């Protein structure tokens, strides 16, 4: 096939009849990677994943006979890949992205110790675990590929490299299948599962405002919309660091290079608070920054979620963070406009909503083909133009997520972080997590959450009145509402990501602080009923102590004794 025309990342080539929709191609003398995205009798439209500068009409296009795929196997953890899964660590030393390079994404030289879990003659079917190796310190299962049923011909435990044969499977009507340490999977096709499960375990982000007010279960989906500088990236980084996921896939999709550099610098030095291991060991980065080709930005979230599905199939709880889905949507828009498709709202293609749905639907809690439980929790940042949430990407995303963590620019500029608005955020996952709190923390989480939200809402209403008459003119009861609400904001909702202690908060600690706040409020109301003035309550030493609880390490004797002091203080005022 030959190139007919070139328009930025979109080229046309003549169709000789041999090429298929969604097939990968090599374009021109530079051998750039492309994908067929439209097929007509006479020509094929190809989106090229690399810069096309210098490509000429009549240069040849070579069909590769497979769809856009990502290489899956041991060695992904701790790695960094571009939007089509190329290993950025293996690019040339001069530090800039070169074209036409496709190094093998995994470490082909590394020896693993393959522990087989099956033997010759065993009957196997798709998804079953043949055995495992240790990747970082995680069991990485070598699995029977989807669609395959047969009998194990040979299995080779012991020292293996990823490209070696680990096992052969005798098939009914075909040559034996060789199973290596890696395989390729088309990124746009979801990996099969046994069934979708209902969700009942909270995904703990370590951020109080999320875990307590707007929770999400393992397998849930959440969106983080917010204007520039509202804190989307910091929040996602915090979740990547401190959440209780087994594996984190961070997709830097059309955002800043320095943010990727920051992860690379920081994560290896931090420890997973639960396993005690370096955070980088559970993290995979897909980095397709804003200045890298937009076509590869479009594919980056699929590359990420395919890797997520791969580890889910082994029975892990994977969290995929995409920053930012708006940049992905803009890539769609740019490509759609080059194809001269008829736009829907604001130039976005009409299929924006269905693509978003397809992506978020790949998250969930599942029974895998091997019968294990695994989950994919998906959290996507949204960057609305002008911080206006009525724009198409935010609106469509809202249809497919059940937790909406709206970041408010005015909170951010007042340095109230995370700037999650308690007014417009929501979570529809209350049902899924409530039992966990009952069983594990022995609290009526729902009523605590309601109490906190009510105080905040009451204070919000008073805010308008204060603007007219001033705080001093409020009755004492209402002054207390404002005071308690401020305490909740400062002592509970706000969480500084850079604080050595408060950057994350265990659920047990969240409960204790919430209890102290609620007790303060009800006890003060009681005291005022008994005749105490607001001014007296406002002088209580307890206030400062409650505010500082979050900074005290937990569990610790200091935390307990501070709690005791707060209680004594409040009770003593009788």
């Amino acid at each position, binding site marked *: 096939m030959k190139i*007919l*025309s*070139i*328009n930025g990342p979109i080229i046309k080539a003549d169709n000789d009849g041999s090429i298929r929709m969604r097939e990968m191609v090599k374009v021109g003398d530079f051998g750039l990677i492309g994908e067929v995205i439209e097929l007509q009798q006479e020509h094929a439209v190809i989106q090229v994943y690399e*810069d096309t*500068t*210098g*490509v*000429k*009409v*009549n240069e040849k296009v070579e069909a590769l006979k497979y769809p856009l795929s990502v290489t899956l196997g041991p060695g992904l953890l701790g790695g960094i890949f571009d939007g089509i899964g190329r290993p*950025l*660590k293996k*690019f040339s030393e001069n*530090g*800039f*992205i*070169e074209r036409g390079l496709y190094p093998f994404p995994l470490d082909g030289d590394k020896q693993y110790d393959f522990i087989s879990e099956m033997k010759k003659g065993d009957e196997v079917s798709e998804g079953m675990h043949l055995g495992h190796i240790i990747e970082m310190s995680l069991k990485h299962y070598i699995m029977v590929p989807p669609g395959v049923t047969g009998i194990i011909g040979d299995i080779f435990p012991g020292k293996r490299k990823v490209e070696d044969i680990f096992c052969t499977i005798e098939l009914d009507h075909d040559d034996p299948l060789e199973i290596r340490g890696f395989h390729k999977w088309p990124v746009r096709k979801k990996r099969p599962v046994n069934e979708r499960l209902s969700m009942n375990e909270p995904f703990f982000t370590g951020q109080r405002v999320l875990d307590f007010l707007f929770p999400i279960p393992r397998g849930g989906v959440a969106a983080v919309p917010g*204007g*520039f*500088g509202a804190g989307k990236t910091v929040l996602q980084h915090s979740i990547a660091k401190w959440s209780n996921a087994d594996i984190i896939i961070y997709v*830097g999709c*059309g955002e*800043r*290079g*320095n943010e*990727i*550099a*920051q992860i*690379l610098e*920081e994560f290896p030095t931090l420890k997973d608070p639960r396993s005690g291991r370096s955070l980088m060991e559970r993290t995979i980065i897909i*980095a397709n*920054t*804003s*200045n890298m080709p*937009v076509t590869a930005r479009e594919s980056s979230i699929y590359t990420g979620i395919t890797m997520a599905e791969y580890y889910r199939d082994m029975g892990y709880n994977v969290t995929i963070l995409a920053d930012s889905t708006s*940049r992905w949507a*803009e890539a769609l*828009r*740019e490509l759609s*406009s080059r194809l001269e498709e008829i*736009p829907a709202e*604001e*130039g976005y293609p009409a299929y924006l909503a269905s693509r978003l749905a397809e992506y978020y639907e790949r998250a969930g809690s599942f029974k895998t083909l091997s019968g294990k439980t695994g989950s994919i929790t998906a959290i996507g940042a949204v960057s609305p*133009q*002008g911080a*206006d949430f009525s724009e198409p990407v935010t609106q469509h995303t809202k249809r497919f997520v059940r937790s909406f963590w709206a970041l408010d620019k005015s909170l951010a*500029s*007042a*340095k*109230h972080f995370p700037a999650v608005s308690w007014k417009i955020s929501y979570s529809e996952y209350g049902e899924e997590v409530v039992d966990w709190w009952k069983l594990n923390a022995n609290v009526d989480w729902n009523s605590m959450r309601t109490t906190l939200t009510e105080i905040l809402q009451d204070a919000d209403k008073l805010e308008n009145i*204060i*603007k*007219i008459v*001033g*705080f*001093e003119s409020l009755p004492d009861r209402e002054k207390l509402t404002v005071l308690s609400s401020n305490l909740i904001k*400062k002592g509970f909702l706000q969480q500084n990501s*850079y604080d050595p202690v408060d950057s994350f908060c265990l659920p047990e600690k969240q409960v204790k602080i919430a209890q102290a706040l609620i007790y303060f409020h009800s006890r003060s109301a009681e005291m005022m009923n008994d005749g105490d003035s607001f001014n007296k309550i406002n002088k209580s030493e307890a206030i400062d102590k409650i505010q500082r609880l979050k*900074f005290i390490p937990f569990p610790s004797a200091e935390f307990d004794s501070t709690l005791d002091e707060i209680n004594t203080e409040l009770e003593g005022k009788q």
Partner: protein
Amino acid sequence: MKYRKYYTSIKKVWGPLMIVEGVEDVPYGVFTSIVLPDGTERKGQVLAVNGTEAVVQIFEGTGDIDTDHSGIHFSTEPFKVGVTESMKGRILDAYGKPRDGLKPIVAKTTRDINGRPINPYHRTYPHDFIQTGISVIDGLVTLIRGQKLPIFSGAGLPHYDLALEIAKNARLKDDNEKMIVIFVAMGIKHDDAIKFYRSFEADSKLDKVILFFNLADDPPMERLIIPRTALTTAEYFAFEKDYQVLVIMSDITNYCEALREISSAREEVPSRKGYPGYLYSDLASLYERAGRMRGRKGSISQIPILTMPNDDITHPIPDLTGYITEGQIVISRELNHRGIFPPVDILPSLSRLMKDGIGKEYTRADHPHLAAQIYAAYSYSQDVKMISTVIGEEELSPTDRKYLEFSRIFEEKFLNQKRGAYHSMEKTLEIAWEALKVLPRRELSKFTKEELDKYYD
């Protein structure tokens, strides 16, 4: 430039574009030179190739081009600029040619002005701050080497004065390091541009600056290449010659308008306000050229300047810029009216990289909390101010009245600074504490007890 093919088959000319037919082997994206009937030349670039037709964008205007007598040369590569250390002190145009009437630049090395994206794996995260001597910047929106920190301003506001103060005062921790300022004028007035030159000249510091000029009456399409030429020069100085480079680009709004013109001539589907859907990616291809790289000593920091149409921060240009850059310095018309310089509105301003470049190891241990506290207090004091205009200052609680006083001291002493006065970091932090001390101790919730014990009492 090497040219290979020459054609006279111009089919169509419109806006800044033309179509040449019957072409063969023309690579996408290469540089072209159009020859007019009178022999003058206009530079251009291939925007698309469709069979035997090439769409060419002309940088220097399409006026006087005709279909019968004009011709076009196609080169074999994209536009390249010659780079050399002898560019220092010079005023150059979009193509790296002198505009100062002095001798031509002779360079052995040439570079594609589009550059290549930095491999994110090869970046190093920025940490070292650049001291500007301006309290509000050093204290609250600290500039870090390798950062892109734009100034969001409005027509008639003193953004050039601020940029110039920063450019001239900028100091590195280590005096032995080499530093250079690259100033890129895109469609700005001659007087504003030359002010930069004069000011460096007056201090005999011309060897610390390179200027690229596309002025208000120069061809608008050249605004699309001049920042790339300048950034390519910056990359040479930073990554090959170990300089700490500060690139000041003004005015991004003019750049975006040139981009919009091309886009509408090509009849592309616009997104907001007629700007093309790829405005974000296009701006990113400039801004993301800031940074530091593994194993290299130099850095590129950027201060893009943009005047917000109608002072509207939600306009696509500031909005998309804010989504790419690492913070922003927002100039306030109100503060400027009140004679405060630099009139920086700190609430919408932000330096995202400062947290990793300040504090114990870099400036002083209490700096991060101090900055957070000032922001929180100033933000609250603005609410109080609003309320007090309704209910009167007397009706405010005693604490709220303290906040008003804080805000007064902060604006008059901390923000406001004599031009040319260089504040040390110590002094900056000291004034900040002076303002905060007006507030009751309990209000200062961002500090640790130890910090309060040390600085508050």
